Each structure stands twice: as C-alpha cells, then as structure tokens.
C-alpha cells in the first residue's frame, strides 16, 4: 500500500506537469487564433469631432465601389520624408479598412528591400518621385510625392527646408483610384465666345478654383467655341454654359438642341446680365430654356432674411432645398449654399410632356425677384416683382418623345425637330439612346467662382451637379470641412500658474498624503 502511494505520489508531478504543459499550449493556441481572426476582421473608429482620420464620404464611395483586387504599394526609403510618410501609411490603412476584401496595402522599403525595389522599378517604370503605385490586374496608376502634400518654400532663401502646409494625400489617392476604376473619363466642355467665365485665369468671375475640383474628380475639361461650329465636340459628356454676357445665335441653340437630342447633358449658369444702358440683356437662352419648362426671369433676388451675416440682402445664404439627389446630402446635413446677385430660375406651369422639373434650391419666403433695374438705390417688393420663395436652380430630366420636342430645332409651335429622321422610330439614332437627358440651370455663376466656391456648401453643390449630370450618382456627397485647428495662447503668467499646479501642487499633495499614511502606520 505504501509503495502504491509513493508511486502515485511520484507520478503526480509528472501528470500535473504534463497537464500544465498542454494547458499552456492550448492557451497560446487560442491566443494566436483569436488575434489572427482579429487581424483579418476589424473595425477602425474615428473619435475625432471632425472625423479627420476617416475617409471622406467621396473617398469611401469610391473605394467601396472597387470590385476587383487593388494593391496599394507604398514606396518608402527616401531621407527627410517621415512626416508625409507616416500620414500616408495611416491613410492607406483607412482605404484598406474600407474595403478589406479587395484593397490591400503593401510597403516596400527602397533601402532595405533593394531587390523588390528593383523589380518594382522594372515592372512599373517608377520614378524617384513615385510614392504610391495602385495596381490592378490590368492597369496601374501612380501618386507622386509632390501630390501628397503642399509645401511652403518661402524659407528656402534663408537656408530652411520647405515646410508642409497641407497634406493632400487623400485627394490624390482617391483621384488615382477613380482613374483606375472608371472605364471612361467624363469630358466636360465649356462654351466660349460669349463672355463666359474664364477657367484658367484667377479673378472674381473665374472658375480656376472650380477647375481644381474638376481635376480631382477625374473630369477632363475642355473649351469649345460654338459660334460657327457644326456640332458639339464628339465625346462631350457634359456641356457647360458658364456666365455668358453676350447672346447666343439661333444656330448655336440648334447645336445645343441636337446635342441634347442625342443624349447630351447641359449645365447653364446665368447671372443677371445687363446692357450698357442698365437694362436686362436678352441672351437668347431664356426662350430656348422655356421649351424645357424652365422659366428665367429678368430680375435679381433680394432676400432680407438671408442667413448670411454682415452682407447685403442680394447675397443669399440658404439651406432650403428641393427633393433631388444633387441636394440631398446638403439637405441632410443642413449645410447652406451662398449665391451672390442671382436671378430667379423656376419651373414653368406648362411643362412639356415627358419632362420632369425639380427645383434644387430656394430662398426664404421673404425674398423676391426684383425687376426694377432702373431704381437700384431704392428697391422694394411690388406687383411687378417675382414673389418669394424664389427658386435659384432647377434640374430637368427628359426622355423618349420629349426629346423630339426640344426647342430651337423647329419653328415656334411646331414639334418637328431640325433632323426629322432622328426623331422617327424608323431612323433609330437619337431615340435609341437609353439614358434620359439631363439639364440643370442655375440663376447664378458666382457660387462656382474663385471667390465663393469654397464657401459653405458651394463646392458640394457644384460637384454634385456635375456628377449627377454625367450619371456618377455614387460620387454625390458633401465636401468635408477642414479639421479644427488648436492653438494655445498662454502668456508667461498663465504658464507659470499651470507649472505650479502640475509640477508643485499635485505631486506635493501626493507626498503629503504619503507622509500622513506613514505617520498613521507608525502609530
């Protein structure tokens, strides 16, 4: 009996030890499995107020549309790029987290991985400036270091290095992804020859700032002189008439009509235009647009209850929107847009069959369209004016037989088109286009100009309009506000007070408490 007890007593540590070993291995195995699953299935939450570590809605929409494997290769290893590099790597993590099924991130260090770097250089012909390579099975795009940040070089004359002013990585990467994913780059053509707003030169009426937005959204921008032309340039996805100050001829309107008949899209932005004598200028577009059910008044809008502070009533800030995809994100966020010296644009009572008109943005009820241009010093609402609320933009969709009645192609009152073959079922051609025609008219150009496009929700309104017109609804969103800036302005006295609090008072109180505890224990 005692032998048995001794034997079992000697065996017990071995048994216990074995069990312990198995238990430890099992625990480590479970630990590894749990963390492996966690690495592959995770969520990132951005707890900042302005969501600066979250991809913008637009970027999110672009990356979530990706349905084929995309690898984002970050090329690192150059000296002096730590701040941009860190931000870029974190940014790529966000893209990968937004679509982990298809988007992957890889980092290649030029210095530590020269073989891999050489392979990249040979396969993709990268340059020294290449920071990110976006690769699919069939295509690739590059984002350069110079695209990732904006630098201030003013200190270089004093021997200082350039300082980073803004990190622009997200815009550049999203644009590159758009280019990679889209089969077709939408072509936007701006008319010329009628005093339209310039695209390349800065200034109050210029659209040069807006052009930067168009570039980032992967639009191809071009210009076209309509006078004397035979047709709208081939491949035009969107035609834009931006702030003309000289009237259009009937021949030009016919070109526009034919273009729309063929499934084209048109954006018109019209400021109140005056002749040299101060009377409203007939641009020739008003009657033509009436054929689409769009009424353009010879007025300028006054809104005494505009939300804009410290400016006159002819500058209108409003968040009154219609129900339409273009303005849906703005309405959802309650974000205002600002129009300056606008004219009323609204749907007419008599809407041609097959056309649907939606008001996009309106003033308050207290506003009106002032028609008296001769007494600008003392204006007030009277019977001749357009009563509020006044619409400042409309969207028109038309399809099927409605295109056959596009005005400008016929004599007034008839329904024949300029090209009769195109409108009959036998001809095919124009009627064969499956997509609906789209037209947007705004009674203001200024909201898109260099002065105002970055104000309020103006850039969102402009880009949403463009994207809706070319049927890129998935890109309709709201531009994000810049992140909050924090700056402390402490003078010497305040700093001293804080130092005394955190370096003397707090630790001192702890030491006193410790001393009291020690005394208590001694007793």
């Amino acid at each position: 009996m005692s032998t048995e007890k001794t034997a079992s007593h000697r065996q017990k540590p071995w048994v216990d030890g074995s069990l312990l070993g198995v238990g430890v291995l099992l625990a480590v195995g479970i630990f590894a499995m749990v963390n492996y699953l966690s690495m592959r299935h995770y969520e990132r939450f951005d707890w900042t107020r302005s969501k600066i570590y979250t991809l913008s809605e637009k970027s999110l929409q672009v990356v979530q549309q990706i349905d084929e494997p995309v690898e984002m290769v970050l090329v690192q290893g150059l000296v002096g790029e730590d701040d941009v590099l860190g931000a870029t790597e974190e940014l790529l993590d966000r893209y990968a987290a937004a679509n982990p099924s298809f988007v992957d991130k890889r980092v290649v260090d030029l210095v530590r991985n020269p073989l891999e770097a050489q392979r990249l250089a040979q396969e993709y012909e990268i340059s020294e400036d290449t920071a990110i390579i976006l690769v699919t099975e069939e295509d690739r795009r590059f984002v350069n270091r110079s695209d990732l940040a904006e630098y201030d070089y003013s200190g270089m004359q004093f021997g200082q290095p350039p300082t980073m002013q803004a990190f622009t990585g997200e815009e550049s990467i999203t644009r590159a992804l758009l280019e990679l994913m889209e089969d077709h780059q939408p072509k936007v053509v701006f008319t010329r020859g009628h005093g339209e707003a310039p695209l390349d030169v800065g200034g109050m009426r210029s659209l040069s700032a807006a052009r930067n937005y168009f570039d980032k959204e992967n639009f191809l921008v071009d210009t076209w002189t309509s006078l004397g032309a035979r047709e709208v340039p081939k491949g035009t996805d969107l035609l834009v008439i931006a702030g003309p100050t000289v009237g259009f001829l009937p021949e030009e309107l016919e070109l526009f009509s034919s273009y729309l008949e063929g499934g084209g899209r048109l954006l018109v932005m019209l400021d109140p235009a005056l002749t040299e004598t101060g009377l409203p200028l007939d641009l020739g577009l008003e009657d033509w647009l009436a054929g689409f059910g769009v009424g353009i008044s010879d007025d300028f809008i006054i809104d005494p209850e505009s939300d804009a502070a410290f400016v006159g009533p002819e500058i209108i800030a409003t968040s009154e929107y219609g129900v339409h995809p273009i303005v849906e994100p703005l309405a959802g966020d309650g974000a205002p847009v600002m129009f300056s010296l606008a004219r009323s644009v609204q749907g007419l009572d008599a809407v041609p069959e097959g056309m649907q008109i939606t008001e996009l943005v309106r003033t308050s009820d207290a506003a009106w369209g002032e028609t008296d241009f001769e007494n600008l010093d003392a204006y007030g609402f009277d019977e001749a004016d357009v009563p509020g609320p006044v619409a400042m933009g409309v969207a028109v969709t038309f399809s099927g037989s409605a295109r056959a009645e596009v005005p400008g192609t016929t004599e007034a009152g008839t329904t024949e088109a300029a090209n009769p073959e195109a409108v009959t079922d036998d001809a095919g051609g124009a009627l064969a286009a499956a997509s609906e025609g789209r037209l947007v008219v705004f009674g203001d150009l200024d909201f898109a100009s260099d002065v105002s496009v970055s104000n309020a929700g103006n850039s969102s309104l402009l880009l949403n309009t463009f994207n809706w017109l070319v049927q890129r609804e998935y890109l309709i969103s709201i531009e994000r506000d810049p992140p909050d800036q924090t700056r402390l302005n402490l003078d010497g006295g305040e700093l001293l007070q804080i130092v005394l609090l955190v370096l003397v008072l707090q630790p001192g109180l702890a030491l006193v408490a410790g001393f009291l505890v020690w005394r208590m224990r001694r007793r």
Partner: protein
Amino acid sequence: MNGVRAIFERELRSYFFSPMAWIVLAFVLLVNGYIFALILSFLSDARSPGSVTPMRLFFGDTFFFWMVLIFIVPVLTMRLISEERKSGTLEMLMTAPVNETQVVLGKYFAALAFYIFLWMPTGIYVLVVAQHSSVDWGPIASGYLGIFGIGSVFLAVGLLASSLSKNQIVAAVITFAMLMFFFAIYFVDSLVTDETLKNILTYMNLLQHMEDFGKGIVDTRRLVYYLSTSVLFLFFTSRALAAKKWS
C-alpha cells in the same frame, strides 16, 4: 466572485495604506506634469503647428510617457505575490476557500484600480487645456482608453513576474525585462522586411497603438490584443500559482 472581491478589497486597501504607493503617485504626477508643461510651452509658440493638440502629444508621443509606464508597473506589481510567498501568507491564502484564479483576479483588479487612480489626476490637464482652447473630447477618451489597455497588459505581465520569484526586486527586474520585450517590437518592426513578420510585429507594436489612440483612432485589433494578452498572462500566473501549490 466573493473571493475575488475580498482579495480585491484587501489589496486595494494595502495600496492606499502604503506610503510607497503615494510616492509612486508623486513620481507619476511629477513626470506627467513635466511632460505637460513642456507641451504647453511648445504649443504656445506661434510657430507650432495648430493641428497638433496638447493631449495628443501627451498620450505616448514622448519618451517620458513610456518611462512612467515601465517604472511604475514593476513597482505596483512586484510585491503582489512574491511578498506573500516570502512571508508565508500565500500558503494560508491558498487554504482559504479561494482558488488560484480568484487570487490572481483579485490582485490583478486591485492593481488595475490603483493604476487607474494614478492617472486620474491628469484629468486636470484636460481641464487646463479646455480653459484656453477648444477640446475635442473624442481623442481624450481614446487616449485614456489606450493608457488603460496598455496598462492592463503590463500589469498582467508584472503579476506573472511576481509569481515567479520570492524576491520583490527580482520580480521587478523580471517585469522590467519583459516590458522591454514589448518595446523591442517597435525597433524590430522598423527593421524587418519580411511582409508576414512585419504584419505581426506591427499588430503588436504598442508605440504605434498609442499614437493612434492619441489621435482619436480606436481600432478593435488593439482592444482584442490587450484583452487576449492580459487573459493569457493571467492564465499563466494562475497556473504558476497552482504549480507552486503542488510542489
């Protein structure tokens, strides 16, 4: 649970009635206060970037932050089990109607509670910033979440080290060495080129974690890592105690 609570209360009382704990608190406040004062004077300079907030710099962006963690954790945990083993009270504790797991959990939660207490006075820094500038509360909350998470891992490591030796100093040194392993990951991560290994090391890189928490980014991978690592080390500790019981 009663056993866990009883041990928790006992240990917590012994922390607060120990002069050493208050000295540790004074040290923590002195170092953190120094960090905070430095940050404030830096940000009050007109040339400093407006996009970096004081608390973001405070949470893990300085060497002193990690120095505080590496030194206070061994001090908090070194006596938890090793002192009881040396004085013989551990055997008595194990004969009481509590098992090893309850002992470990009770001591662990007490250490964690005192660790949280050590960081609570830094809430005054947030109030100071709020008086002079706008405060984004999200990154503040995530910053403290990161401190809590990393602390929970370190304390579990310290508790294991304490169970491995009867000598408190030895236990503290073992804890210190094990914590340095976590820091070594940061350096090795930047040197490694193999993709799989790099992914694993990045996943475990606490300095990167704290940088994200300080910005306001809360990643579920970090939280899972902290919880699973703490549980793993606590399991090891309870098995170590059980093994001592058999021998």
